């Protein structure tokens, strides 16, 4: 499965770069994250609850950052396994300064999934992945704003953690949107 997209952040490339290195922010942004910690240079270990349609369970795995070119680009390798199956992904992330305190993030990667997740969740996985990404960006946007203003005000940033319930609601919304799009009954 190919994962590709672009997002515009309100912050400098350096701020965005740092945001993505903050395990607290990242675990707040990714739904179902039970644990995320740095275990070595650029190696993170994470435990996540994943639910794709009828398939649910805990995934544990590693995220490795390589090819770092601060604050412009890096490569992300994710590998995880759990009861619902496994996933493996490699992606490149490019940050571009758009001026006016704005940074665009372009990402492109290839994700491979297997096990129950692939066999039974295949129809839903595309939408679920997009939902996770969209929701994560929404939270990251807020986190970045909070971080920037907290920095300016010299206080601790306070992040809202997304609940699995929020995430489930988003996925459901996106799925319905997709179905409507397919049947052509959506106005837009």
């Amino acid at each position, binding site marked *: 499965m190919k994962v590709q997209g672009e997002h515009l952040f309100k912050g400098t490339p350096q701020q965005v770069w740092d945001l993505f290195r903050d395990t607290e922010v990242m675990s707040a942004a990714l739904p179902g994250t039970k644990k995320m910690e740095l275990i070595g240079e650029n190696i993170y270990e994470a435990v996540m609850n994943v639910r794709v349609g009828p398939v649910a369970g805990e995934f544990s795995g590693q995220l490795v950052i390589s090819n770092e070119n601060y604050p412009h680009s890096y490569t992300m390798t994710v590998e995880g396994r759990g009861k619902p199956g496994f996933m493996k992904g490699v992606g490149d992330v490019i940050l571009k300064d758009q001026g006016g305190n704005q940074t665009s993030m372009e990402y492109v990667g290839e994700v491979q999934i*297997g096990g129950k997740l692939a066999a039974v969740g295949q129809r839903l996985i595309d939408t679920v992945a997009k939902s996770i990404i969209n929701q994560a960006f929404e939270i990251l946007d807020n986190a970045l704003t909070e971080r920037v203003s907290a920095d300016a005000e010299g206080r601790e940033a306070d992040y809202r953690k997304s609940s699995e319930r929020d995430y489930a609601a988003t996925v459901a919304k996106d799925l319905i949107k997709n179905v409507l799009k397919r049947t052509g009954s959506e106005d837009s």
Partner: protein
Amino acid sequence: MKHKIIGKRVKRVEDPRLLTGGALFVDDVNLPNMLHAAFLRSDYAHARIKNIDTSQAKTIPGVVGVYTAEDMGDAWEPGPPLVSPPPTLENVIFNSRRQVPLVKDKVKHAGEIIAVVVAENRYIAEDAVEEISLEYEPLPAVVDLEKCLEPDSPLVHEDLDSNLAAHLIQQKGDYQKALATADLVIKKRFHLDRGAAAAMENRGLVVDWNEKDQHLMVWDATQSPIPIRNGMASRLGLRTHQVRVVAPFVGGGFGPKIMMFYAEEMVLPWLTRQLKRPVKWIEDRRENFYATTQEREQIHEVEMALSREGRILGIKQKIIHDTGAYDPYGLTTPLNTQSHSMGAYDVENYYSELTVVFTNKTIVTPVRGAGRPQGIFIVERMLDFAARELDLDPREIRRLNFIPPEAFPYNHEIIDQAFTDLVFDSGNYLPAYNKALEKIGYDKFIQEEQPRLRAEGKHVGIGVVPFIETTGVGPYEGARVAIEPSGKISAATGVGTQGQSHMTSFAQIIAEVLGVEVEDVSMVTGDTAEIHWGTGTFASRGAVVAGNAVNAAALDVRQKVLALASKVLKTPEDELELEGGQVRAADIPEQSISLGELAILANPFRGAVEPGTEPGLESTKYFGPAYGATAFGVHGMILEVDPETMMIKIHKYVTVEDCGTMLNPLVVEGQIHGGVSMGLGNCYYEKLHFDESGQLLNASLADYLIPSASEMPHIEVIHENTPAPNNALGTKGVGEAGAIPVPAAFMQALENALPEYNLEITETPLSPNRLYELLQKKERNK
């Protein structure tokens, strides 16, 4: 015989039990003290196992044991080779690699078994499976049929130099010579993809080792209980009489429930002997998609040489056949493809090179049709393309090439799946073909209906395709028929029953021969305690091979009845008749004796028995044909396609079937209806999607679509009868026929419905998505 029952539409004797919930299926077997097994299966298609940790799983309350390959010790050995390579051909490469009970070091397809949990119930067993932790080293998967032969391809079996499983060449005549004289040569490439058998009942096993009487009792949802009994006994070091295998009512077979020696059939008997308790395992649907064998993926490069008039001068073909991770079933399927690649036609020159490859996918063994649909697809599609090139009517080119009735027996000079000469025993193709054209209303459709509907903007098309099916192959089957003192008949045969109505159609044979009612015959199929020798239900052979064994045994019993009755009634044998359970003198009906009384007389308590006689009115006979019986048929359909939505509706479906003598036409029609539904699945609905890493992406019935009543058309079945000359009943098989020509007929109709696109469909199955892609490609090229 006066009393005509063969060929009658007799209601089935097995139905009342099935209809009221009273029939025994494997999962209905519940024994005291029974344990339940669940398997840990690989998520990866290709991976090395680094470590297995079962300690956590073992701590779960209710878990009795968790076992890996290591625990099996010396009992660990691969499954037996089921079908060896053809001994009659020279220069055959065949690398036999058989499935294993539990994976030791390297996983070769997703779903392969790594460990087994035995627990007090299935729920606990499944919980414990999730607690086994595994370390894998994922390896690149071998998926593509052509790339897998490239020198840098990863290897499924690392002890081999390549992924080549088998290679052989079969030829007849001289294709090169034919090529030299040809007016037209057509070359095409075909890709046929995988489908599932998807019987409604998944596989299942209950095994019970009784330590005290040293017997293993097995209930197995199998098509072949006798080979399973033999194999289990041999693997466990037991005598065959110590093992009884019962295939009770089986919820559909369609090929994969053959004597595979699936991993579960190797592991469970070992477990019950270890634990001395009964163990049950019932496959779930997801396991069925991974672990039960599949079929049909092949790539063909085909060349057909023709004369200007449309006569086929020769066919040249290169086949790559996917056997999946192992090849326990030898070359049966691709040999069938070769046997059917000349269709119903008189082809003098044939050259076929077969390459079989290993891939990291589920094992391939026959599925209803077993390589035949691929052969028919190739030859019929090629004829359609040739007719177009030569500007011939597709009907004319077929009529021109049919094997004429006087040419039978027709020897194709190659070998078939049974390793015997591919000889078509009999046939009369042209009248059946013409009848199908008449019944579908070909002329009227082309001349009137299609132009009218096209003018209304509708895309309707017609497809009519003839086919042959080699059926009823050896080696043999047996049957035992006995008259009980009650006058009722007990009979048994070794083939299993998965819905083919054996208990009725075989009873019809016996009832007719012995002059009793069908209800008086109790037919046991699939119990090794009832008959010792046999092979199984496959290759459309039940009615031919087992049917003729039943007939032979019944005739022998009839002879014993006549001999004894002649003495008792003091009437010559040829003046006696069997009617209503009585033997009587034809002219003097009151001079009679019942079969039951004769059975008692044939088993005397006291007194001297004449030397050389056997007690009882019983006989066991075997039937083994020198070569099979070749059935013929024609399928025609009129379909409509909506080029906006790609939805297809079949308006009319006609089949003409010539399966020789029919034992029960109701049953024959039912077989054909079911075959067509699987065939239509193979056209447009059913495709197993494996991704590049060998993951099956649609392993549920929600994603893998088997036709429902909404997709199925009404099917009209017309019977022709060219009796098989080499068996007493004159039967030919029909179990697989329905599925064989459907994709070829469907694609012909689809092309006919969309003439503006000038499609040349060389693949199956399509899907709405795939058809959309094909039409888009044509649009772009316009």
